């Protein structure tokens, strides 16, 4: 309970002002397409030069928590996930917004983020020493299997057709191999110059999600009727709270999956939301409602990606190993002030560490308050007439994809991917499995190649990749996941085919 005695530091006037500023700023930065939490935190580093160590960390901690949650705003309202963490949120959240339930989706997403985030930080406070050892257990073969485990959910993710889902994922995996091979340094599949840098994930996300939507709006043409895209009824805050706690299953799945995955260095944040989303659907009796604007989808995804924030700092604080790009930036923030993380950081600099962690706790709460407060207001964005919306999203996509790396190549890839995705979507393919392939491809490939090199120097790949308790557990999970997804999808498609013949048209393949 040592951390309680350091709460005072959070409530000093300067600290409190930074906390407010960091939270509000983080929400805005997070909601800006093209700005991932990593970039947002990196942007704030120069400000911390002028601050005392604790104050600087309060700013960074608050910004980190709120950018992750802020990404949900553009994911829900514009279907532009600001970062990979928010992809799953966009799936159901945007459908809700299109139905005019944007305010409800935003409130639920902030509440779920808050709950998940608080539990994640609590884990950081109470279980750090235990978890640190656990995080170290994941070596190259294990990360490889985790990535493969992620790949196995591809077929069922947001796709009405099993084979098309798998094929989308496969295209994503292939796209991820374009450009330089990171370890060998050889160029692959560079058909034109813009591709030589490979496909950067944030521009790809913007293209794959936002551009099809823009084209979809164009396709409606100059339509007289329904000038406004939709209505935004106010949604009562208490109703959201009630709804959150009645979806306790989605909330707990999200929180547990998020915290567990957040701990694993190198995989963490990117896929926590998607895996939680998929699991929440598998365990839900209303399986088929996912993807059509089902609130459980938003809750699971958002609780997971904020639950990941706390545990992702465990390896950083105790072992000085940044587990994610954002953690690496935070490490820089610590180093600038001469604070070296390590197992003794809690005894050497308790005032800094505990104030930092406490500020994340308070930050979570502030994030919920500000988020909810602006939800109804922000949801009005979705109320803009279709032509404004379409042109606006197009311009945002241009600026967002450029600002990541200041490269026209990124922008061109963004548009090409987007137009391609629009056509593919028209034929039943979907963006989510494709993006998952794009994210997981490099993780699987790099860990496989590095692992193979170690295996060659040791007892060979078989021993290295298939023995040891953790490998066996993960391989079993992979096999079970593949089996489960084949079983349910084949069975479903068999039934669907039969009913099709009698009914003529079937909604699902």
């Amino acid at each position, binding site marked *: 309970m040592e951390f309680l005695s350091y709460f005072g530091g959070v409530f000093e006037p300067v600290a409190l002002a930074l906390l407010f500023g960091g939270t509000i700023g983080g929400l805005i930065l997070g909601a800006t397409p093209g700005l991932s939490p990593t970039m947002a935190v990196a942007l704030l580093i120069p400000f911390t030069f002028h601050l005392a160590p604790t104050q600087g960390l309060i700013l960074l901690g608050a910004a980190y928590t709120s950018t992750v949650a802020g990404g949900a705003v553009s994911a829900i309202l514009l279907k532009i996930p600001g970062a990979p963490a928010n992809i799953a949120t966009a799936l159901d959240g945007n459908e809700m917004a299109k139905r005019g339930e944007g305010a409800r989706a935003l409130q639920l997403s902030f509440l779920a983020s808050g709950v998940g985030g608080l539990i994640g930080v609590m884990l950081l406070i109470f279980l750090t020493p235990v978890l640190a050892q656990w995080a170290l257990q994941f070596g190259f073969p294990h990360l490889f299997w985790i990535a493969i485990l992620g790949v196995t959910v591809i077929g069922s993710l947001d796709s009405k057709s099993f084979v098309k889902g798998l094929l989308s994922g496969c295209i994503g995996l292939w796209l991820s191999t374009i450009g*330089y091979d990171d*370890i060998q340094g050889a160029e692959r599949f560079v058909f034109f110059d813009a591709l030589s*840098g490979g496909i950067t994930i944030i521009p790809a996300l913007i293209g794959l999600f936002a551009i099809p939507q823009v084209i979809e709006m164009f396709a409606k043409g100059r339509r007289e009727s329904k000038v406004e895209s939709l209505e935004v009824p106010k949604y009562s805050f208490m109703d959201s709270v009630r709804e959150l706690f009645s979806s306790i299953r989605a909330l707990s799945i999200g929180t547990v999956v998020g915290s567990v995955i957040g701990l694993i260095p190198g995989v963490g944040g990117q896929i926590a939301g998607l895996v939680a989303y998929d699991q929440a659907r598998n365990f839900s009796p209303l399986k088929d409602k996912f993807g059509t604007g089902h609130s459980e989808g938003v809750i699971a995804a958002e609780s997971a990606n904020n639950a990941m924030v706390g545990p992702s700092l465990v390896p950083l604080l105790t072992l000085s190993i940044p587990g994610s*790009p954002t*953690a690496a930036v935070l490490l*820089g923030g610590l*180093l*600038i002030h001469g604070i070296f993380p390590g*197992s003794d950081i809690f005894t050497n600099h308790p005032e800094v560490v505990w104030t930092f962690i406490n500020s994340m706790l308070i930050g979570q709460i502030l994030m919920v308050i500000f988020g909810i407060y602006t939800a109804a207001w922000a949801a009005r964005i979705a109320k803009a007439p279709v032509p404004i919306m379409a042109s606006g999203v197009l311009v945002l996509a241009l600026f967002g994809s450029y600002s990541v790396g200041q490269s026209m190549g990124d922008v061109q890839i963004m548009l090409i991917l987007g137009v391609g995705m629009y056509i593919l979507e028209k034929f039943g393919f979907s963006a989510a499995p494709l993006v998952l392939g794009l994210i997981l491809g490099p993780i699987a490939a790099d860990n496989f190649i590095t692992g193979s090199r*170690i295996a060659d120097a040791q007892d060979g790949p078989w021993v290295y990749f298939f023995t040891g308790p953790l490998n066996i557990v993960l391989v079993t999970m992979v096999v079970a996941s593949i089996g489960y997804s084949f079983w349910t999808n084949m069975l479903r498609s068999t039934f669907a085919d039969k009913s099709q013949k009698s009914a003529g048209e079937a909604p699902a393949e």
Partner: protein
Amino acid sequence: MKTLLKTATLSVAALAVSATMAFAADYPERPIGVAVSYGAGGATDFQARIVTMVAGNEDLLGQPIYILNKPGAGGRKGWNWFATEAEADGYTMSAYNIPHFIAQSIKGGVKYSADSFEPIANWGADPAVVVVGKDSKFNTMGDLIEYAKANPGKTTTSGAGLFVGHHIAALQIEKACDCKLAYIPTKGGGAAAMKAVIAGEVLAGVNNLSDAFRAREAGNVKILGVADLERNSFLPDVPTMKEAGLDVDNSSVNFRGLMVKKGTPQAVIDVLAAKVPEMFKHKRVASRMKAGGSPMHIMTRDEVKAMWAKRQDTLADLLKGL
């Protein structure tokens, strides 16, 4: 008509010339970007952010410097971008890492070489060190080499990618001891390579001195040797490779500094070459770098030019036949 056209062309040309002149005199009149070829939070990014933090001071450049991360493929992505897409107007600089980009250009497959860029100044030198886990049975470089000789190709040694400083150091050690290591390049820079050492996934690792110093402070690793000509002030107790009986020089030392693209107006280069070393020398920069455990080594444009040329020769020699 013809004369009119001629006059017009001439006046346009004159306008263009005077524009460049005025341009150089006013330089810089807006913020300057520095492209870093490694991810946010990595050692290069972290140091670049510190050494450029006072750029906005009136007596220095008078305009702030912002960092632009272009990570990928061991730095190739960022430098390719810089060599092909960036404008040679002095408003986009890049951080260089020696020996990385020279080694990569010798190895081929990239769109740059040492001739594509103009050095401005050097801010830091981060020697490669050999680290092992805290519970490792190796206590000296001798122990490690003895094991490597007894088990050729089985001494797994992690480092941040191929043809970067770490790899060069590993190659030099192999050449010096006439033994075979198993060099394991990891993705994700020095941090991932360090994690593999701490977690015991590999027997040893080559890493940045600054990161290793930190990991040792945290009680996670032992540092066996430093690949430099003399001992480092951060690690006075760690012997150099030469002291450990290995003929390894300072070719793998990771020099970091700023450069611009070839074709940048000479006047702009002159402004930068005069002001940037002053910026690196600022006392706030020095204190922050020291706090972060990052060794500084300030060199002027001419010194860097000589250093680049020397590295070009040694590396071409070392990488021959690989």
